């Protein structure tokens, strides 16, 4: 807490200091109205953006919008609304401060689940491909974990540990190789663990952005494989009170989940606030054939936000608590290799289970608290200044199947290990005003972290981290070309504390390195664009890679860290080709990620003798590796009422040093979704039916002798869903969606499922999603 106190004190003090040092100037407000070009009806909820300053707004009642406090100058004004063609024009301020925008309905009925590359994204450079999952899409696909929603993105898969633990995988990379940004700060949990999922409530977020490939310049050490940015919805900007109730039900594990959100605006809209709470309870999941013992889980989460904005100043404070208890499949913990072989040979659970909500060991108990403070001030002479502070407390307790009791009289089971990670971060950025045709951002950031654990058996030593970085990203725009470059320097010092039984000395090591990127986008015609990027980033070896020494009971391997590991350096290249025709919209992305010093565990072909017998020894090693692939998708609009989306992704992972495939890379896969837009029927509006299929091939590329079982067979899964909206008041519609996943109750095992050795993945799941907005704010 000392750390929090110091950092937050300073952050708050510096905010005040900063606000005080400002000098007032008179920028321009843009006002206007957005209407349908055919019916002239106002459009509520259209997104409005100004480039290159990335300031935006949303049209409210009667299609009216306001974008406050824009410095004089030339801008590109963009308006977007689902089902309409995007509108873009050059404007000059103060001349064009009142705008009347008419949007043309798309020739096609875009489904409300737009997955599109968004060049004005918060995530990264203008030339990089970022993928955005909108609120509407989240509502349709919101599942039981954050990973479930991310899986809808082409090129993103999940690493599953049973039904409840789902880690996002971008281009075959996960855990410490990707950065998850939550409420503006990098989520810090024990992310090195393959069975440690991001501690984020799926109900708390309203949109997700994914950047594939290294983003070290913007996100610092660790963002070597990609970035996932989850955002909460914008705070109200007008006086009132409103909210929404959301409920989800899942048949497979008889799960119920609900969220209540209340928000409001006060003081003329300058203060906005929100409070949200959600709960979730799930029992055992089932495959097409049997129950998976002890796979229930429960969650209790809450969050609160308050924001204040006046003139050029905005500020926001956010707090969230995530609490979960996760059961781990009972048959996945192995005393020794014979136990594992027995489970593999059986091919199904060794003991029958029934449905229950009871969670026994092995289990995880996780609490994650996150505080985030953000403020920005637009200095007309200089640009927009931003400061972001974060503090997180992650507590993870894992319990074994067997109960262990403390030596004292207490009858409470004690965890096999317990880790407490405390992290503080501070970042300051200046989005400077355009200098000629160049605009960009410069910034500095700092992190501090400490991890204290206790365990029955050794896991990792205690450690602390301090780091700092300085970066600049600049974009040059000319005609139909955009050029982009960025540079960052980071230094990171890690201290490890004494642990005598494993000969871990009290020692410090400092890593430093440069991240950089260059990119270009060429808008060849109104329909066709081509972009390409080169970037490099690094990450420091994580604590388990350095200091592991013990049996991993999920895999019956004895893992040994290497204390001499060097930082892992990644180089990424990507190219994206986009073509938007009258009846089609297509995008092809190719990429190659080369790693110097790629860290992985290699069988050492020796064994270590424990009381439980001999275990094969796996050692952390560094090699050269290459991951390359293609993500392609296309949308076909046959009629106004029918749309087909096709997506394929293929990935090639190779250990170049050993000249063999990398372990556990996602298999090639394809997806087809047919979306039927149905006419309104009485009070049922925006009706649709969607039928989809997913096809996953067998992974044919895997290291020989690197795994217990060769990759599972290919499979096809089919889903259907249907949705409608029912007006419940003048401003509000009830949103209802019912979907059936794995409709044929297919028995299958995915290569990226860590339990594929001994049990199948989940069977049919009927999901009901209900959302009821209420209060004074109209539906967006």
């Amino acid at each position: 807490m000392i750390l929090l106190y110091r950092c937050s004190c300073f952050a708050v003090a510096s905010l005040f200091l900063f606000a005080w040092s400002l000098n007032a100037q008179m920028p321009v407000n843009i006002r206007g109205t957005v209407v349908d070009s055919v019916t002239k009806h106002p459009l509520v909820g259209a997104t409005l953006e100004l480039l290159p300053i990335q300031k935006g707004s949303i049209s409210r009642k009667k299609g009216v919008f306001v974008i406050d406090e824009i410095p004089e100058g030339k801008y590109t004004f963009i308006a977007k609304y689902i089902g309409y063609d995007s509108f873009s024009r050059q404007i000059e301020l103060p001349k064009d401060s009142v705008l009347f925008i008419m949007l043309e309905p798309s020739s096609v009925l875009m489904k409300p689940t737009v997955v599109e590359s968004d060049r004005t994204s918060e995530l990264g450079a203008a030339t990089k491909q970022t993928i955005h999952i909108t609120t509407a899409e989240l509502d349709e696909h919101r599942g039981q974990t954050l990973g479930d929603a991310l899986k809808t993105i082409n090129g993103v898969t999940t690493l599953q540990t049973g039904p409840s633990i789902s880690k996002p995988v971008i281009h075959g990379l996960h855990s410490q190789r990707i950065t998850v940004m939550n409420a503006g700060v990098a989520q810090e949990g024990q992310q090195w663990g393959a069975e440690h999922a991001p501690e984020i409530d799926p109900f708390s977020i309203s949109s997700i952005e994914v950047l594939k490939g290294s983003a070290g310049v913007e996100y610092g050490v660790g963002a070597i494989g990609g970035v996932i940015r989850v955002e909460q919805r914008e705070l109200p900007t007008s006086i009132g009170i409103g909210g929404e109730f959301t409920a989800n039900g899942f048949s497979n594990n008889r799960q119920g989940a609900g969220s209540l959100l209340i928000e409001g605006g006060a003081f003329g809209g300058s203060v906005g606030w929100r409070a949200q709470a959600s709960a979730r309870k799930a029992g055992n999941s089932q495959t097409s054939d049997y129950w998976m013992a002890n796979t229930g889980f429960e969650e209790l989460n809450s969050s609160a936000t308050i924001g204040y904005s006046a003139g050029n100043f905005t500020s926001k404070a956010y707090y969230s608590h995530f609490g979960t208890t996760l059961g781990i499949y009972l048959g996945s913990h192995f005393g020794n290799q014979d136990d594992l072989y027995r489970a593999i040979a059986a091919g199904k659970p060794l003991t029958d289970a029934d449905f229950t909500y009871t969670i026994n060991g092995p289990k995880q108990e996780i609490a994650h608290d996150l505080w985030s403070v953000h403020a920005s001030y637009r200095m007309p002479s200089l640009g927009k200044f931003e400061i972001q502070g974060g503090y997180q407390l992650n507590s993870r307790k894992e319990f074994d199947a067997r109960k262990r009791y403390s030596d004292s009289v207490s009858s409470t089971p004690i965890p096999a290990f317990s880790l407490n990670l405390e992290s503080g971060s501070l970042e300051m950025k200046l989005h400077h005003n355009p200098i000629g045709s160049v605009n960009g951002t410069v910034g500095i950031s700092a992190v501090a972290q400490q991890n204290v654990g206790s365990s029955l058996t050794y896991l990792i030593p205690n450690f602390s981290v301090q780091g700092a970085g300085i970066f600049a990203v600049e974009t040059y725009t000319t005609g139909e070309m955009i050029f982009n470059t960025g540079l960052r320097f980071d230094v990171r010092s890690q201290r490890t504390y004494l642990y005598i039984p494993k000969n871990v000395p009290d020692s410090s090591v400092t890593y430093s390195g440069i991240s950089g990127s260059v990119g270009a986008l060429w808008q060849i015609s109104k329909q066709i664009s081509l972009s390409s990027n080169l970037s490099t980033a690094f990450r420091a070896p994580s604590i388990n890679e350095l200091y592991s020494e013990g049996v991993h009971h999920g895999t019956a391997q004895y893992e040994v860290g290497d204390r001499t590991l060097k930082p892992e350096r990644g180089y990424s290249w990507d190219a994206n080709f986009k073509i938007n025709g009258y009846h089609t919209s297509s995008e092809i992305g190719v990429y190659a990620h080369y790693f110097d010093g790629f860290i992985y565990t290699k069988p050492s072909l020796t064994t270590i003798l424990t009381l439980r017998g001999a275990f094969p020894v796996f050692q952390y090693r560094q090699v050269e590796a290459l991951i390359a692939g293609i993500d392609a998708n296309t949308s076909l609009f046959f009629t106004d009422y029918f749309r087909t989306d096709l997506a394929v992704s293929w990935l090639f992972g190779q250990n170049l040093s050993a000249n063999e495939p990398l372990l556990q890379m996602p298999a090639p896969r394809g997806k087809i979704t047919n979306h039927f837009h149905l006419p309104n029927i009485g009070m049922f509006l925006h009706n649709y039916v969607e039928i989809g299929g997913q096809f996953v091939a067998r992974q044919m590329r895997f290291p020989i002798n690197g795994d217990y079982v060769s990759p599972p067979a290919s499979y096809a899964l089919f889903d259907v869903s249907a949705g409608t909206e029912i007006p419940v008041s003048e401003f509000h519609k009830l949103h209802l969606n019912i979907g059936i996943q794995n409709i044929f109750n297919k028995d299958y095992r995915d290569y990226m499922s860590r339990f594929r050795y001994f049990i199948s993945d989940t069977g049919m799941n009927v999901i009901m999603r209900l959302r009821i907005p209420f209060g004074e704010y109209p539906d967006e």
Partner: protein
Amino acid sequence: MKTYYLYLIALVVIIAGCSKDPTAPPVSNDHSPATTVILTLVRMDLSGMPLDTTSCTVRDTSVIKGKLPIEGKLSLQAGSVYKGFLTLLDESQSPVKDITSSIIAEKDAHQFRFSVKENSLPSSAVVISDLDKDSKGLDFGLNFKATTSIIAKPSIGLIHITLEHHDDGNKAGSQFDTDLDRDFPFILP
């Protein structure tokens, strides 16, 4: 840009402020898993009085460094009856802690199983019987009887001992964790 530089300086101050060393926290390790198992055989005379004792110790060398993984050999005599028992230690602690009582406390969930081998083949040179029982009358096996073959034939072999941990108490079930899986060598002169 002046303000910006000011904040750069401020940030350096923050980093310095935040980077005070946290006190090095100890890793607690009060709760011991076994590192070492001792098999002791006590030769009994016909009236049940002890004559002599032989033992063999096996260790977890991933935890205990600098000691032998197997220490001692069971030196047996033909045609004898032994009282056998196992002792579990945590040698990672100083002083070494006897944690046999913790397995006795969980005897309903555990069973020791024995097999005897010579040259990797099943052998009847030593016969293990009369395993002690848990509270439900099922075999536990921390204490047992060992009988050596009456035919004095020189042999070298292994007593293989596993410890099955059955969470559900169903000791005949196939869903269990193996807590011990080691060989204890013996010689019959």
